[in-house]
């Protein structure tokens, strides 16, 4: 039994914290909300220097060959300072490419960060819904995956379709996703600069989250010989990564709120001494600890029990997402009126929380998936 971080993992985490601490991410997030998007520091060079783009790429292809849990540690550090680093889109894309021998030549450039990839979220079937789907631009009705024509002699296809709210799509050179060919899912890699590919940059509520609507019209793509489990695995990996990022944000939101509760006095005593405040902060801690434990579950399951990874990753997403919502709302209330003003960082956490909850299928879909996985297990038993 060993669920503690290795020395290398502690070093990876501390190095990430150190590297990100050189930037005023909160100030930049606020200025960007005011319209000055150039205020956001470009953290991709920092990521490249640290080797983060290649975290999940094997050493054979110039990556670091590390595990999902290591990537989650880095995402957690990004979440702590609400940093905008394009790893949420990049890492799941590299996970699919790493399972596709046909894409081997793309990997060194993606490992160094010279090129950046974005994952086109594709939701795999579950026990109720039998088909694959993409995130829609609006509403509850799921969108169809892009459709692929016949594969030509060079292993290329033409794609038609669209995917909304793709994390980190603007500026990515390679788009990696899933398309349906004769009703069957196939992995595809698309060069963003090719004709027929449009990436419309969109900002919603949280200036630190880069999103894109991707439209494909007869867009050329390379068919990836990654197995279907790998295509589904990328969806669950993305859930685990956004969970880790959210838990990082919960950590600092709680720290700030606790410090304030110790310093701020009313009726002659620190507000943190009142049960109403103490219990609401303890509730954030409870959800934070649960989220942390599920990050360990997801990190362990990916290697130690791959069949459980979908359950673990979606449970982590579900809990982490609620934890961040709770942490942000508690941060606002503990700070009184100030917490709801532009001067404070609390609104930045709140905006991060509310948008994050709706990305990558939405946190409720992750919650539903937890039920689906357990119900399927129960029927099999």
């Amino acid at each position, binding site marked *: 039994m060993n669920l503690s971080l290795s020395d290398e993992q502690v070093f990876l985490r501390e190095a990430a914290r150190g590297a990100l601490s050189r930037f005023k991410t909160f100030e930049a997030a606020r200025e960007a909300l005011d319209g000055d998007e150039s205020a956001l520091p470009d953290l991709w060079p920092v990521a490249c220097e640290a080797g983060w783009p290649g975290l999940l790429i094997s050493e054979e292809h110039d990556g670091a060959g590390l595990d999902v849990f290591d990537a989650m540690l880095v995402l957690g550090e990004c979440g702590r300072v609400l940093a905008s680093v394009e790893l949420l889109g990049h890492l799941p894309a590299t996970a699919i490419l790493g399972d596709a021998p046909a894409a081997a030549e793309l990997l060194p450039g993606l490992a160094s960060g010279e090129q950046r990839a974005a994952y086109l979220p594709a939701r795999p079937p579950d026990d109720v819904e039998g088909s694959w789907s993409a995130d829609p631009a609006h509403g509850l009705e799921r969108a169809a995956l892009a459709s692929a024509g016949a594969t030509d002699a060079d292993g290329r296809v033409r794609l038609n379709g669209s995917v909304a709210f793709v994390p980190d799509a603007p500026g990515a050179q390679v788009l990696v996703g899933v398309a349906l060919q004769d009703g069957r899912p196939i992995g595809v890699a698309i060069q963003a600069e090719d004709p027929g590919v449009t990436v419309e940059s969109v900002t919603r509520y949280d200036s630190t989250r880069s999103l894109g609507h991707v439209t494909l019209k007869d867009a050329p793509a390379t068919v990836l010989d990654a197995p279907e489990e790998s295509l589904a695995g990328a969806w669950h990996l993305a859930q685990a990564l956004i969970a880790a990022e959210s838990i990082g944000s919960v950590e600092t939101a709680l720290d700030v709120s606790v410090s304030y509760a110790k310093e701020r006095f009313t009726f002659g005593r620190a507000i943190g001494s009142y049960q109403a405040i103490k219990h609401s902060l303890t509730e954030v801690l409870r959800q934070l600890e649960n989220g942390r434990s599920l990050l360990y579950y997801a990190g362990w399951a990916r290697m130690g029990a791959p069949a459980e990874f979908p359950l673990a990753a979606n449970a982590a997403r579900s809990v982490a997402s609620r934890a961040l919502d709770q942490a942000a709302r508690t941060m606002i209330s503990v700070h009184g009126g100030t917490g709801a003003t532009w001067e404070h960082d609390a609104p930045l956490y709140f905006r991060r929380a509310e948008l994050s909850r709706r990305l990558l299928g939405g946190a409720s879909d992750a919650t*539903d998936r937890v039920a689906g996985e357990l119900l399927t297990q129960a029927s099999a038993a």
Partner: protein
Amino acid sequence: MDLDDTPEQATYRTKVRSWLEEHKSEAPVLQGPGALEDEDEIIAARRAWQGKLAEGGLAGVTWPKEYGGQGLGPIEQVICSQEIARAGVPGILDAIGVGMLGPTIIANGTDEQKSRYLGPMLHGDEVWCQLFSEPAAGSDLAAVQTRARLQEDGSWRLTGQKVWTTNAQFAAYGLLLARTDADVPKHKGLTMFVVPIDGAGVTVRGLRQISGEAEFNEVFFDDVALDAGAVVGGVGNGWGTALTTLMYERVTIGLGGEGMGYNSNRFAAAIASDKHARRDRNVRHQLGEISSELLAVRFTGYRTLTALQKGQIPGPEAGLAKVTIVNGAIKAGDLIADVFGPDALADDSEWSYMISFLPGLKSAGGTEEILRNTIGERVLGLPPEPRLDKGIPFSELRSKEAAAA
């Protein structure tokens, strides 16, 4: 990062498993066909089974060898519990004695107490109960009023009442926290005693709960005589001795999590049996939320084990896992009753029993409110609520309370 046994742990697991394979036919049957029904027979059979477990080295795993234990660590204790659960046989009857009270005596008792009480406790020959809480002292445990008065010959006379006492109806002894000096501040005037439950002046009365069953008791003491040798940990040191017990209680709760049977697989199996419920969005959403938290607690347990393996002692944050488990199980019971309808509340339904049991469990081992206070103060470092009892003699506090009423 792994959940695997070390080679030593694997060897220990194999040893426990083969003992259980060899002896499990001797275990009492408590469920299913051929199950024992008579309460007295069940207790007698479980005591005998505890004796066999002790002989096989499966009870008191963490107790030192000189007191009949195995001298092993908490990880081995967990492995042993896992294997007992896997074999589908009951564990020891006196988990409170062996898990919390025995270790308290080992840490604080006299040599005479250790040699007299520990052996029969471990083997189930004498069952123990914990006599701490009172009607007016639960969260504020140091406010106990049960009074022990020193006699001229050095013996004591005990009068008062305890409550929420598990196993008192068949216990031989209790470990009791009493006030021995009311003229000093309340934490200082306390002393721990060993009290024979069959002694003159002791009355045990079952306390029925929502389910209609009496799993707890009230215990009354009317001028009960105790000799000087009944004091555990020294006169006036009762609070420190009680803290030892409460630390072992935290370890037990921190590691026992899923042992209570409140786990996501069990609840999912119930929902999966209804073909409409398993496709209902709302039911699935609730099941997903409840299960995610319960799965988290399973891994919090593994984190606790990792800490124990490194020689760290679990802190008060283990209490958060209890809050999650109890509230998760309450929501699960509610969901299952929504799905199954009134049948979930039938007398013989496992869900009816669970639904009835949980509201009380919310306060057991520390109310949710006091756990949140403790964790807020010890873990987050938030300032305590101002207290009106600090440094004030207990007798003075009592007269203030009387005046206010």
